Structures are given as structure tokens and as C-alpha cells.
């Protein structure tokens, strides 16, 4: 050992080395576990598949009608066919509108003219939330955003619906 003052004492050096090696081991142990735990967060968003909902375009009227269909869902190791619902109608331009019935307030299910007091509106029974025919929330009722609209396409005269896309609050 030289007589000069040491920059790093033997004790410090050992402390650093042990902390470093210990930290490296701890990180090596924890990294795979944490990576596994956060795996769902890092999954790419699922692509909505278009499903034939069993409704011919010519049968769509200007009055919203309820359409139920099933989608294929893979949830980890569990595969199922949960149902989906939409309210479908043609607007004044003849364009097809498919609205999700999930209330943007707290997720209850709305229905067209669900309340006798509010004709020509979507009504949510949970907190009296209301939406006009185009799905826009009525001011002064609980929902703060319009009903989501389904992605749609028409093939061979049949209506295909995909994912429900949320709309910005009005």
C-alpha cells in the first residue's frame, strides 16, 4: 500500500462492490418477474375484427333497432363467444349509424325510447342519462360524452360491425 491518501478506502471499495454485485443479482432475479407481470400492459391493442351481425342493409330503417351478435374472444387461456349489442339506423343522408349501448356515464346499457317520458331519445335506466338519436348526450343528464359508434362496413348487402370507437365529449 502506498503512503498517499487513498481516493477510495478499502471499506468503501468493498461496500460499492458488494452493493453492485448484490444489486445486479437482485435485478437479475426481479427483471423476469416484473416483465412477466407487466406483459398485459405491453400487448399491442387488439385489432377489431368485422363480424357479420346478421342484418341486411335493406332492413335498416330510420328508427334505431337493436342488433345482437356474437364475437370470438380469446382471453388468455379462455376462449369464448360473448355477445355484443348495437342500435342501428339510417340517418337523413342514408348513412348507416351503429351506436354502442354502453352508457358513457358508468357503463349501464341504454335503450332507444327506454323511457316513456323521453320519446326519440336513448335512455339509461341507472341514472336517467339521455342521448339524442345521433347518440349525443343530452346536457344536464349524467353522461359527459356521446355513445361510441361501431366501425362498420357493408359486404354483399349485409352489415358488418367491428370495434366501438369512443367519441369526444360534447
Amino acid at each position, binding site marked *: 500500500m502506498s503512503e498517499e491518501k487513498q481516493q477510495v478506502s478499502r471499506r468503501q471499495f468493498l461496500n460499492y462492490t458488494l452493493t453492485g454485485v448484490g444489486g445486479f443479482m437482485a435485478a437479475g*432475479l*426481479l*427483471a*423476469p*418477474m416484473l*416483465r*412477466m*407481470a407487466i*406483459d398485459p400492459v*405491453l400487448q399491442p391493442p387488439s385489432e377489431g375484427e368485422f363480424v357479420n351481425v346478421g342484418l341486411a342493409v335493406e332492413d335498416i330503417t330510420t328508427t334505431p333497432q337493436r342488433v345482437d351478435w356474437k364475437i370470438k374472444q380469446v382471453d*388468455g*387461456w*379462455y376462449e369464448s363467444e360473448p355477445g355484443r349489442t348495437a342500435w342501428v339506423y339510417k340517418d337523413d343522408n342514408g348513412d348507416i349509424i351503429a351506436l354502442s349501448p354502453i352508457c358513457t356515464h358508468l357503463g349501464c346499457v341504454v335503450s332507444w325510447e327506454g323511457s316513456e317520458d323521453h320519446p326519440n331519445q336513448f335512455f339509461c335506466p341507472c341514472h336517467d342519462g339521455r342521448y339524442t338519436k345521433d347518440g349525443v348526450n343530452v346536457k344536464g343528464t349524467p353522461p359527459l360524452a356521446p355513445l361510441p359508434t361501431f366501425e362498420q362496413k357493408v359486404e354483399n348487402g349485409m352489415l358488418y360491425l367491428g370495434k366501438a370507437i369512443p367519441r369526444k365529449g360534447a
Partner: protein
Amino acid sequence: MLQKIYDWIDERIDITPIWRDIADHEVPEHVNPAHHFSAFVYCFGGLTFFVVVIQILSGMFLTMYYVPDIENAWKSVYYLQTEVAHGQIVRGMHHWGASVVIVMLLLHTLRVFFQGAYKKPRELNWMVGVLIFFVMLGLGFTGYLLPWDNKAYFATQVGLEMAEQVPVIGGELKALLAGDEEIVGAQTLTRFFAIHVFFLPGALFALMAIHFVLIRRQGISGPL
């Protein structure tokens, strides 16, 4: 920053003496491999504890994906193994660690035995150690069933038949373990899961606490 947080807490509840009691004590020369390399035999207990920590951590993370149900147990393990990033590694750690724990435990026991470290006044700690050994074997036995594959199923079948050979209470013992007198099935799996992740770890923590408190009270046995 960290120092400040520590000081803030220490000023109020005086944790330094507690910390000293737990961690800050000298390692006797005859136990320090830096002095005598053969002293590495004293590491096996600590290594057992280290692997147990790995088992606890990896086990906690595995339960994020595992389902203790006969319909889904195997599927969830398969999913975890093939679809989840690093799932294979984490289950691998738990799988291999289970064997390493037993090996380390045996080496530790051999060291204590051949050095005669179990003799008065340390008999109690030897007994606690033996209990820890049984708990570990129980953890191994119950954990083996959880993937619910053929090997797991038939190994458990055999294990349960061994339990049945116990005189007088054999039949009851088997039913208690399996949840049914004849079927090794749905109830067995949930039972083994509960034993594996709640009952035995609880017992293990209590026993390890006693084991370590006794070491601190009695100190490590002297040199040969």
C-alpha cells in the same frame, strides 16, 4: 435524500438499535470463508434462505396467471409458459428452485450434523430445523400437483396412497389431504393449492423466524 428520510424516521422512533440488532454483528473468524476457505460450509443455511426468497417472489408472480381449477390449471400454465413474456423463466426459477432448496437444506443439515452443532444448547434449533425440512417437503409435494399434468396427477396419486398406509387413521388422512375419499380431482387441486400458497408458507415463515431468533440469541457454534 435517503439519509434525510432515514434521519427523519430515526429521530422519531430510534430504529438504529433495532437495525443493529438484526444486521450489524461480526462474523466470527472460523465462519468467514475469507479466513478459512473451508468455512464455505457455513453458507448453506443462508443459501437456503436465499433460494426460499426466490421461491416466494417467483411464486407470488406465478399466481398472477395460475388458476387452481381442473379445467384451467393446465391451460393457464401452458399459456404462462408459451404466451407470456418471461413466463417460462419465472416458472423455471420456481421449478428448479424447488429442487435447489431441498439440496441446500440437506447440505445445511449435513454440516450441522457432522459439526455436532446441534448439541446442547442448540437442540431446540435443530428441532425447529427438522420441522422446516418437513414443511419444505410438504411444499414440494403440494406444488408438484399444481400444473395438473399426467406426471403431477399420478405422483399425487402415489403420495396419497402412501398417506393411506398410515395405521388406523390412514383413510381419514388421505381424505383430509385429497378432499375426497376416492377421487383425486377438483377438490384435491384447490386443497393442495391452498396448502401450497397459504398454510405451509405461513408455517414456514413462523418457523424461519424462530430459527433466526434462536441463532441470534445463541450465536453460531464455536470452531471444531
